[in-house]
């Protein structure tokens, strides 16, 4: 990759210090606050966090899809293929969107245009980015539908979205996103709105296509189980920031941030059946309030005075980055973060 000096050869996307805020009547809401992460070529990065933690806003910021106003990107860089996406012109960004980076969304019921046929929507990226003719585009659209496991593809091109189930629509979304063979797919909670059985199928589909196409995937979710099933790398977000970043294996083997361990503790699968589930006390912070120090501190059972200082991500173990001052200083032994009674745990695949 051309201009990016600091990146290793396989680095596809490098986001540094991204800050996005919304200027609303209630005040300035800092939805993403100094977020950094990287995505390597051909890998799957999971971004986990409670709803409202800024996952979607971060991804939309990269593609210039934040509604402005009220949104505003206040700072940061997003290096992709030698460009800084945050400083691209609208025209340059349009050539990235849907061609090099595709995105699929949480709710397949509303993400497709109800007034257009599936075929028209499916072929649109091709006509826009590759300028190919209608017939060729149609052929590719049929192939794309077959690729995501939709039968009678040729007939289905004439259907409208309301004639499909939710799972089918998400398949269509995936076909549409991948029809241009992008290098990066951003999937924003692609299974949250679907039935449990369908969820697994969609995840499996994404994983299969990733292997076949060799693209990188950013998978956004609030479900650690999904991360465990699909992702190789993980970033844990909270209140617009990254609190922990590691390989999935590393993270599940040994969380190195109190928030991550609390999240793991609240997963029902980690505990024996019938045991009372753990809930994190308190509520996520109001993002319009000015803040200092660790955003999780008010809810953290390990918080101390030192947590009033703002933590930054630091490598606390090889390949494992943590934004907890107490862990960084060695005051808080990571073994203490293991959930008592957890033995078998949840293993990364």
């Amino acid at each position: 990759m051309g201009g990016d000096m600091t990146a290793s050869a396989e680095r596809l996307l490098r986001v540094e210090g991204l800050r996005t805020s919304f200027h609303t009547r209630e005040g300035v809401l800092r939805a993403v606050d100094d977020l950094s992460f990287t995505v390597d070529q051909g890998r799957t990065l999971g971004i986990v966090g409670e709803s409202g933690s800024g996952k979607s806003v971060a991804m939309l910021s990269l593609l210039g899809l934040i509604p402005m106003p009220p949104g505003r990107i206040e700072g940061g860089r997003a290096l992709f293929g030698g460009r800084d996406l945050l400083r691209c012109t609208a025209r340059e960004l349009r050539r990235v969107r849907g061609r090099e980076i595709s995105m699929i969304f949480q709710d397949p019921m509303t993400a497709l245009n109800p007034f257009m046929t599936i075929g028209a929507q499916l072929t649109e990226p091709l006509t826009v980015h590759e300028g190919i003719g209608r017939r060729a585009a149609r052929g590719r659209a049929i192939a794309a539908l077959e690729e995501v496991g939709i039968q009678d593809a040729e007939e289905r091109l004439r259907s409208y979205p309301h004639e499909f189930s939710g799972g089918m629509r998400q398949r269509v979304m995936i076909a549409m996103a991948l029809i241009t063979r992008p290098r990066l797919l951003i999937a924003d909670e692609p299974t949250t709105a679907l039935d449990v059985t369908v969820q697994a199928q969609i995840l499996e589909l994404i994983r299969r296509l990733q292997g076949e196409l060799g693209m990188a995937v950013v998978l956004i979710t609030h479900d650690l189980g999904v991360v465990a099933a699909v992702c190789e790398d993980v970033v844990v977000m909270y209140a617009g920031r990254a609190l922990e970043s590691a390989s999935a294996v590393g993270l599940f083997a040994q969380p190195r941030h109190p928030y991550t361990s609390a999240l793991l503790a609240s997963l029902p699968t980690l505990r024996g059946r019938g045991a009372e589930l753990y809930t994190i006390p308190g509520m996520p912070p109001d993002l319009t309030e000015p803040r200092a120090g660790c955003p999780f501190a008010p809810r953290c059972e390990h918080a101390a005075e030192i947590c009033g200082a703002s933590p930054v991500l630091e490598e606390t173990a090889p390949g494992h980055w943590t934004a907890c001052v107490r862990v960084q200083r060695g005051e808080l032994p990571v073994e203490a973060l293991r959930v008592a009674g957890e033995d078998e745990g949840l293993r990364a695949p």
Partner: protein
Amino acid sequence: MDSRAEVGAIDARALLTQAEKGASLWSDAGRRLAKNRLAVAGVVVLACVFVFAAIGPFASPYSYDGQDRENRFAPPSGAHWFGTDNLGRDLLVRTMVGGRVSLMVGLAATAVSLVIGVLYGATAGFVGGRLDQAMMRVVDVLYTLPFTIFAIILVTYSGQSIVLVFVAIGAVEWLTMARIVRGQIMSLREKEFVDAAVVMGLSRRRILLRHLIPNALGPIIVFVTLTVPRVMLLEAFLSYLGLGVQAPMSSWGSLIREGTLAMEEYPWLLIFPSLALSLTLFSLNFLGDGLRDALDPRSSKD
């Protein structure tokens, strides 16, 4: 899943506090309205028009039907600011008195439609079910009736009494009001914060008083401010056709009609009443739009 259940609980609380903000919503709306220059200008102009119409005639040396044959079609001057008409009557005073009629018709007919519409719509919305369906079906049917045409018939046959003009116009306008009120009640009944309020054990009375009514009031107020100008327009339309207020009484519509007949040589006869009517309509519409923007919590303009 537990994390989701927790998030759900938080949402319910957030929604409730949002609804509890009812009172502050109004003061917020007031502040937003005060920042809307057009709406404020509308309020100021309206106040002036009210004073103009209500008090103005007392301050004038002329009366609305006092003829002065020596002074027919006098152009605007120090003695007659708006000039005089074909019978030498002072146009300023006639415009003021016409304003009384127009404003009165506007307010009274809107009040009529408000009462009918709110009662009808709220009943349908609250009772729901079959009755609601039947009542709304009636509204649908009435909607397809050419009401303006009925208003014309009614007014021509009523001996042009102003009271009947009110009734006719009120009867035209209540349908939309009923729909809006019903829609509000229905959607509010389904809103999550009502569920949340029920879950939190609030009494029905409290839900009604603190949540439903304050939240439904916004659209009704907006609709009223936008109905008044429409009604005034309809009255002016009828008077323009010669069907409304009869001479020597005046209303803005009848003055405009007289003005058009003579506009070639005596344009002021058209200009002043038209200005009065349009200015009032502008003010009411700006105020209505301003209120809507101020009361709509969704619109997130800075």
